């Protein structure tokens, strides 16, 4: 097996995540799909790190994880706040910037 198979797998995972973002309505599931896309990119970075023979890809994947963690915290807080005001977690209901 060629190590580039990991790249193809991560491309498929990324596609699944992107389609999920477009298809799903529940804001939390949409958020999980974004996480899946980030994970797919991380797999790409780790694989390229191995193909290149340097560790920079792993460092970048590490930073992606840090940013993803911060993003999840803020994003979930936003979802909770929207749910408090609108009693709904659907992305279609939050179509106004106020109220």
């Amino acid at each position, binding site marked *: *097996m060629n190590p580039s198979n990991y*790249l193809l797998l991560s491309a*498929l995972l990324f596609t*699944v995540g992107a389609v999920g973002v477009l298809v799903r309505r529940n804001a939390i599931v949409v*958020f999980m799909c974004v996480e899946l896309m980030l994970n797919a990119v991380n797999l790409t970075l780790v694989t390229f790190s191995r193909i290149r023979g340097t560790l920079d890809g792993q460092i970048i994947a590490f930073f992606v994880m840090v940013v993803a963690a911060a993003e999840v*915290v803020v994003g*979930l*807080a936003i979802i909770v706040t929207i749910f408090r005001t609108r009693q709904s977690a659907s992305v279609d209901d939050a179509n106004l910037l106020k109220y």
Partner: protein
Amino acid sequence: MGVSASSTVLAAAFTQTSNGEAVAFWILGPIALAAALLMVISKSAVHSALWLVLTMFCLAAFYFIQDAPFLGVVQIIVYTGAIMVLFLFVLMLVGVDSSESLVETLRGQRVTAILLGIGFAGLLVFPLGAAVSHTTAQGLTDVNAEGNVQAIARLLFTNYVWAFEVTSALLIVAAVGAMVLAHRERAARPTQRELSIARIRGAHPSPLPGPGIVAHHDSVDTPALLPDGSIAELSLSRTPPADEGGTTPELPQNVGGR
């Protein structure tokens, strides 16, 4: 797994991984992909979260296989341990039965999205697969010679130290931002004394009438009603003139609502 077995040999570039790695890939890869698809498909958001956990575990295994044990551990601890638990917490906070609305705001969006996804996957996989199918991998055995964590730490605190410092600012801002967003200022509850003062100064110093009493007035100038609902003449006060004080007796609103 397979690559580290040949770590005594000097790190030679390779185009084919070991058989063990291939077996692990062809078992875990379809599992990861199927779990990702099930995450998108499943109706319940909790099920979606659990399928995503399975995908992330498979990815952590891939990190271990690909000579990135540090990232594999971080993946398990941070992603499946912290982030997914946070997701489940928020799911419980928001309500598990927050059902998906099937109304399409944009007509045909789902079909278009799925078709675009298939096209995107084809565009990504086939040309890219043909382009990189004979990749020569350098391997990480000599880079990881002193240990993966040590090598990553060396890079992180030399070349990437500025990004690392900025990351700390990002984390603090994220934590403060989450607190500001999710915190709700709760109004202080009134004490018992404040409640009693408000009641004495309000419109009803005495307790309100108990339930079941339908009379709108309890003063003496309210006429009594006969069983058929008409006014009992005997109960009307004759002392003030009718045109002066407006003592024309008004009927209670719900006559007969006994």
